[in-house]
Structure formats: structure tokens, C-alpha cells
């Protein structure tokens, strides 16, 4: 089947700066893909190109098989877009705004009358439909933006930082809403908040300095890119013997131990990449009759991966620059 989004070798140069440098990726129908990257990585630029707001400097971009530059209007009819900071006409009432947007999106009158209450219901803004947008809280405004994006039942939803500036409760609500929407729409959302991606997306694309660094499911990113978390053990027993036994456990690379004041030994184990020696650790402790109080594995988060990847990339870049400089000399 045709992918929903197909981006090939996309480059965008602004005067004096390259925002995107040879970006290629695909989004399949039905996926929820998270675009992850620090501020200024090129997320918004990519989204603006996808929605036809600005063109690319070079490369090919297709949405539902249509070139976004050649068939700009057709693409825009198929995409529901919520730009960064969710700009809305703050002087309009919610229902009035949605009606205006529905007309722009060429929904016939009958469909409009059906669809507007529907999206208001879906996004939970029915009770504020007569309020002026400028008087609403940020959370409600965000939902008005989402409602607008949903109006024309688009194949593809593009949401640029949908949870930015919301309070924790609102963030949770918006994330749940996105998850629910993912059942019916293909979604591309951007964020620089990592838990968001882990919670809502099937796939993550990590972008940094206008280049894609990784693209995978959150789980396998965690698996392949990192050895996995450290293991914490708290044991009561003869100090040196405990350490020796634990070091000998299969797949344990190194250990570090510290004696607590209450007599428990706190040991931090670094497991070999891709392994989980917790069971063996338990057996080692239990077979010696020592008391075990804690056995946990700290989960590596996407955050660690993200920092790791972008850091490696920065170092590589630094190196390239150094080399460039030495060549110049």
C-alpha cells in the first residue's frame, strides 16, 4: 500500500542556514509517528513543508501519493494541521471559528452541521462553544486547534507540539485524545518531550541539526541503542563474599558496592548489553541464605537514548569541524 507520507532527500535552506539536510522517511497509513528533536532541529520546518506552507529547497515530498508542491491544494484538503503554538483567531467564538474553518475546507452545509458538533464532542469543547477563543484557557484553545484539524476528517493529522504549554492534567487529556484519534487517522506529531512519544507513538523519528538520526519503535530503540538499565540490589550478608558472588553472576560486567548504615550492602550491577541477569542475581543471593531487600532494574528511558544520540552526533560534528579546520591550516 502507498505510504501516507513519503519524504525523499528533503533539504531546506534558508538564507545562511540549512534547516533540513537530506531527510528521508516514510509514514504508513494508521501509524502514529513521533518526531523527536531539540528545539531548532527542523521538526516545524518539515511539517510546514508537508502542509505546503513553505516549499522545499530540494527533494521530493508526497502525501497520500500526491506531490505537496504540484498538488498543494489537494494535499491541504487531506491534511489536518495544527501549527506550533496553535495560532487561532482570538476574536472569534469557538463555534463561529469552526464554522469558518469548515467552510474554508469546503465541507458542504449539511456535512458542516453534522461535523462541527461531532468534533466539539470529540475534543470536549461543547461547553465552551459560545465563548470567545481569546478568553479560553490554553488547554481549551489547544483542543479548538485539534477540533479544527479534525473537521474535514483528514487522512493525515500533523500536530506540531500539541501539548506545549499545557498543565499536567491537560497534557494527559490531550495525549489520550491523540491516542484515540490514532485509531482512525494517521498522525505525525512533533515534540521535544520524550515521555510523550513513548506513551503515544508507534514509531519515533529522531531528528537533530536537520538530519534524521534514528527511526524505530520506542521499545526497540531502547533495546538496540542502549545496554539497558543498571540493576540495584540491596543485600544483607558478608560484604566481600557478596561482592565476589555477584561479580561472578553470568552477564554481569561490573559492580559497585556501598555499605548502608543499617548493615545492608547496596550493589549496583552493570549488565552486559541486551541481557537481564536479575534471575541469576536472585538465585545467587537466595542460595547463600542472605537477605534480599531490593532487586530493581532502572529502565533506560528514551531520554537517555536521545541525549546519547544527539551527543554522539554533536561530537562527530565537532570532529568534522576540527578536521576541516586542520585542512584549512
Amino acid at each position, binding site marked *: 500500500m502507498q505510504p501516507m507520507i513519503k519524504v525523499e532527500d528533503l533539504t531546506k535552506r*534558508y*538564507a545562511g542556514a540549512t534547516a533540513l539536510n537530506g531527510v528521508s522517511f516514510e509514514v504508513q497509513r494508521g501509524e502514529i509517528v513521533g518526531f523527536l528533536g531539540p528545539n531548532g532541529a527542523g521538526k516545524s520546518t518539515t511539517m*510546514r513543508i508537508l*502542509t*505546503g*506552507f*513553505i*516549499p522545499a529547497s530540494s527533494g521530493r515530498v508526497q502525501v497520500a501519493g500526491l506531490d505537496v508542491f504540484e498538488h498543494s*491544494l*489537494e494535499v*491541504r*484538503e487531506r*491534511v489536518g*494541521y495544527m*501549527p*506550533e*503554538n496553535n*495560532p*487561532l*483567531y*482570538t*476574536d*472569534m467564538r469557538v463555534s*463561529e471559528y469552526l464554522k*469558518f*474553518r469548515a*467552510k*474554508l*475546507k*469546503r465541507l458542504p452545509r449539511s456535512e458542516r452541521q453534522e461535523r462541527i458538533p461531532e468534533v466539539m464532542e470529540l475534543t470536549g469543547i461543547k461547553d465552551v462553544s459560545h465563548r470567545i477563543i481569546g478568553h479560553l484557557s490554553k488547554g481549551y484553545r489547544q483542543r479548538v486547534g485539534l477540533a*479544527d484539524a479534525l473537521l474535514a476528517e483528514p487522512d493525515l493529522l500533523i500536530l506540531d507540539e500539541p501539548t506545549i504549554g499545557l498543565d499536567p492534567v491537560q497534557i494527559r487529556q490531550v495525549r489520550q485524545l491523540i491516542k484515540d484519534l490514532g485509531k482512525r487517522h494517521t498522525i505525525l506529531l512533533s515534540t521535544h518531550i520524550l515521555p510523550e512519544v513513548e506513551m503515544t507513538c508507534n514509531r519515533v523519528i529522531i531528528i537533530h541539526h536537520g538530519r534524521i538520526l534514528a527511526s524505530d519503535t520506542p521499545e526497540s530503540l531502547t533495546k538496540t541503542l542502549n545496554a539497558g538499565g543498571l540493576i540495584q540490589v540491596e543485600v544483607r550478608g558478608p560484604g566481600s563474599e557478596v561482592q565476589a558472588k555477584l561479580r561472578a553472576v553470568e552477564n554481569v560486567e561490573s559492580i559497585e558496592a556501598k555499605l548502608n548504615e543499617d548493615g545492608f550492602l547496596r550493589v549496583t550491577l552493570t549488565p552486559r548489553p541486551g541481557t537481564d541477569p536479575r534471575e541469576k542475581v536472585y538465585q545467587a543471593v537466595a542460595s547463600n541464605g542472605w537477605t534480599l531487600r531490593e532487586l530493581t532494574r532502572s529502565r533506560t528511558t528514551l531520554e537517555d537514548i536521545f541525549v546519547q544520540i544527539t551527543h554522539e552526533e554533536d561530537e562527530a560534528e565537532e570532529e568534522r569541524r576540527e578536521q576541516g579546520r586542520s585542512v584549512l591550516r
Partner: protein
Amino acid sequence: MTNVPPLLRRELNAYFASVLGYVALMFFLLVMGVTFAVVIRYLNTGPTQMTAMKILFSMFWLPSLVVVPMITMRLLAEEKRAGTLEMLMTAPVTDFEVVLAKYLGAVVLYAMMWALTGFYVLIVRHFSSSETMLDLGPIFSGYLGVIVIGQFFIAVGLLASSMTKSQVAAALMSFAVVFMMLIVLNWLTFLFPTGPLGKVFHAVSAFDQMEDFERGIVDVRPVVLYLSGTVLALFITTRVVESRKWR
């Protein structure tokens, strides 16, 4: 062009959703009302060649200079500043539709303001002793004149608004341009009363053209001049809006 009606409606609503529309309207009605009151007193002092509406139309330069920047400064500058242009342009509408709707919105508001001065015609008619005092021909051509000239300045104001994110900068730009085209050109007709240059200045001076319109003469040349000026200004405005694409 199917998107123009909803866009136009939104533009008109926006004037009255903010204080701006009311302020512009108040300014216009205040100036025109005071002028009308003074004119009536003046006409009562003795016999004269002038008619009330003729004097009123000759005041057209003041709304052009002040009201036009007021009602056009917001149009595109504010959309750019607030980022709502992105919402607008990622909907299935063309850049030209947006520009056209904004231009039409301002023209409709401007025409509505002048339409309100129709009450003055009714007042004059009610109190005038004979039918001859109120010749409807020059009144219609006068209204045509203020609209034809005003709509061109509106297109210029819209162009100014497209070039900046700041409403104040847009207002000052359109004020400067309208001032040059209206007042400075008028001064030039005094500096060069005759000669080839003088001929050109007289031909394009809005004051000279307005005099014809006030007298009931509808010359096609200024109408064509202003309408083609509008087309050019709207074309450039569309290009400026599009320029985000090639910058």
C-alpha cells in the same frame, strides 16, 4: 474563488469584533458630521455656488489619509505576527483568495462609512425649499469618486500591511504613500500649473479628479487609472504573501 465569501465575512466580522472598526467609524463620522454642520451654517449665510454635498465630497482626502491606514494596517501584518497566516494558508485556499477577501472587506467597510453620509442627503432634502437644490446626479458621481479613489488607497494600504509584521509600521507606510499620492501631488499641480509636467500632474491628481466627480462628470480615465492601480497593488501583495515560499 469559492473561498472568498467566507473569508470576506470573517474580515468584516473582525472589524467589529475589535475596537478598531468602531474607532475608524467614529473618526469618520465625527469629521464628516462636524464638516456637515459647518457647511450648513456657511450655506445659510448667503447665496453661493456650492452645494452641501459638494463641500462634503471635497473633504474626501481626510478619510483617505487617516481611515484607510486604520482599516488596512491590521489586515496581513497581524496575521503574520500572530501566526494565523499559517493556519489560513494551510487550508485549501489560494494566496490570492486571501488577499482579495481582505481587500474587499476593507472596501466594503469604507463604502459603508460613506453610505452613512446618505443621511446628510436626506437631511438637506428635508429642509431644502425647492427640488432644484438637490441634484441627485452629482451626488451619485461624487459617491462613485470617493469609492473609486478610496478603494485604490485601500489596495495600497493592504500592500503596506503585507510587508511587515508591525501594524504601526504598516499604518505609517500607507499613510506616507497616500500622503505622497494625494497631498504632494496636489501641491505639484500648484507648482506646475501649465506645461507638459503640469498636464501630467493635473491628470493624476485626485483633487482635480474629485472636482469633476463632484460636478457630476464621470470621466472614465481616472476610473481606469485607479482600477488598474488596484489590480497592480493586489498582484504585488499576492506576490509578497507568496514570498515566504522563495525566501
